[in-house]
């Protein structure tokens, strides 16, 4: 049994496990237990003061997101598709008593750190009655661009509408395939274990609503037919454009917002006091997914042409019309009817928190693809700013077989190569951006990236830059 004096020590002990350390490869195949956390990017792993909304993209959120994701997923069964034989030791460690004890010790504090800002940032409107809840929900989905159809009960889907928002931003990228790939990778975080959070709300006994939730789950799980399981058709979509299909193969390329968003659903289902927020959040998302996945399909076909298999998007664009209606009528309104006004504020809060997380997620993703798409320009910009470095910086030597991990900074940084050559991985691509000796790259605050030496040895110097000063 581990006895730890403090949260910090417990976190260090957790992250110090072999499976949470980086290895030399960019991608992780056949081993869903291996998750480099990159604790070293924090000066001090102090999670006592909750992150504010303004600190959403700080490295502490990224690290906490990776830890919480691993913590939640150790409550699920993950086995490599080609058999356990190659990863049996890591399986044993991932699910070991020691790692679980540490997990239980750190989870509540990390949740407080990661999710407290929701309560501070979200203003829950005063919705109290069933009628008010119906009016509120319809107003919210209309405002999000997914009004009800003529029947008043189904989300309206327009399969020909021009794409907007982040889907449009992808099509506008120079390297649109990489940008689209990064989007699918963010979806993969949840989609390859699709509906696992929902599974936590199947056990127990809570009447008709339990059966109604289960109907949704049956679809997600493909009726017990493996080829129809949503995670299986998602894998088909990844494979069609040459992406890896193993769970967390792209672990290092999950953005902070993706981790926080996926963790939020596990957080609400793992602590059952969150169940009403969860049910409302699911309702809101299922409703928006109908149009959302129609848009994703349009985007993918625009980027990849006919070679992309969009069955997953088509499936969701279709089935989520049903799920939108089913969750709205039977879950959201069902819980409000059965349990009354004591739970309606929780339901509304679930929707408001989801709205905020969606907004933060979109902003993070669009900022990442815009930066990753213009690393050459940011190298030019870095050179121009080189003289404006605010400090001496920190130097590091890289070698090709060093452990690979990704990070973010809490302020803008300049990454200058002083010897050798370095590849910058800002998304999953076989063509990373190469920096030569004398090159300086501007890495804005919160942008995810990893560095890998492209010569037998390379030296980089990372310094702070304050762009607000002239």
């Amino acid at each position, binding site marked *: 049994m581990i006895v730890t004096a403090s949260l910090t020590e417990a976190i260090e002990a957790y992250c110090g496990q072999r499976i949470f350390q980086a290895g030399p490869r960019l991608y992780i195949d056949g081993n869903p237990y291996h998750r480099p956390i990159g604790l070293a990017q924090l000066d001090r792993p102090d999670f006592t003061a909750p992150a504010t909304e303004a600190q959403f993209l700080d490295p502490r959120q990224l690290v906490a997101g990776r830890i919480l994701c691993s913590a939640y997923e150790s409550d699920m069964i993950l086995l490599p598709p080609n058999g356990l034989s190659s990863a049996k030791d890591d399986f044993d460690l991932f699910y070991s008593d020691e790692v679980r004890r540490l997990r239980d010790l750190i989870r509540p504090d990390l949740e407080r750190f990661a999710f407290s800002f929701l309560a501070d940032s979200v203003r829950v409107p005063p919705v109290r009655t069933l009628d008010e809840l119906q009016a509120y929900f319809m107003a919210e989905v209309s405002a999000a661009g997914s009004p009800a159809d003529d*029947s*008043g*009960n*189904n989300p309206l889907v327009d399969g020909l509408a021009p794409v907007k928002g982040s889907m449009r931003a992808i099509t506008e990228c120079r390297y649109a395939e990489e940008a689209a790939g990064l989007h699918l990778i963010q979806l993969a975080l949840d989609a390859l274990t699709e509906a696992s959070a929902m599974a936590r709300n199947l056990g127990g006994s809570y009447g008709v609503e339990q059966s109604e939730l289960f*109907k949704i789950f049956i*679809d997600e799980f493909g*009726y*017990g037919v493996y080829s129809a399981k949503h995670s299986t058709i998602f894998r088909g979509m990844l494979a069609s454009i040459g992406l890896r299909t193993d769970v967390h193969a792209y672990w290092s390329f999950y953005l902070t917002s993706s981790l926080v968003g996926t963790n939020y659903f596990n957080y609400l289902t793992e602590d059952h006091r969150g169940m009403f927020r969860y049910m409302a959040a699911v309702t809101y998302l299922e409703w928006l997914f109908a149009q959302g996945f129609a848009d994703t399909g349009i985007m993918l076909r625009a980027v990849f042409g006919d070679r992309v298999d969009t069955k997953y998007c088509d499936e969701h664009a279709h089935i989520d019309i*049903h799920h939108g*209606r089913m969750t709205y009528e039977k879950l959201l309104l069902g819980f409000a009817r059965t349990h009354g006004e004591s739970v309606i504020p929780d339901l509304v809060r679930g929707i408001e928190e989801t709205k905020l997380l969606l907004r933060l997620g979109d902003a993070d993703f669009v900022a990442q693809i815009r930066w990753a798409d213009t690393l050459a320009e940011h190298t030019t910009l870095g050179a121009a700013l080189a003289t404006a470095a605010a400090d001496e910086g920190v130097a590091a030597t890289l070698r090709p077989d060093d452990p690979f991990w990704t990070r973010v900074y809490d302020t803008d940084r300049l990454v200058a190569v002083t010897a050798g050559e370095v590849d910058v991985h800002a998304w999953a691509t076989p063509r990373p951006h190469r920096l030569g000796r004398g090159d300086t790259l501007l890495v804005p605050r919160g942008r995810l990236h990893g560095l890998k030496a492209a010569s037998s040895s390379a030296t980089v110097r990372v310094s702070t830059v304050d762009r607000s000063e002239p």
Partner: protein
Amino acid sequence: MDRVVTMDLRQHNTVLVGHDRFFVFRADNQLQLVRDSCPHRGGPLSLARLTPDGRRLSCPWHGTRVGVAALRRTAVPMVRSGDQATVVLSAVAADAPVSVIRRRILANLPPERQCDTTA
């Protein structure tokens, strides 16, 4: 392989074949053994309710409306003689277990009064 299954209709109303289900559906005062699977996503049509006009079943999974006439066209070969039914199931794996059981069949209840609004 074709398999012949007999059942006493006073006691049984469902046939399980491996993981496939068939149920005894009553329409126009005739009993037929039909597949318990909605063409949309395989939902349990035995648990569907008739629409107010009695002409369609509303699947409990997604509310898909399945015409009674169309469902009857999926009926498997069956001979009813009094309360005894003899069913011929085709293309059944030799080791697939076959059971006849009694279950609740909502599809044989009178049409639902309340008109629901689902598509």
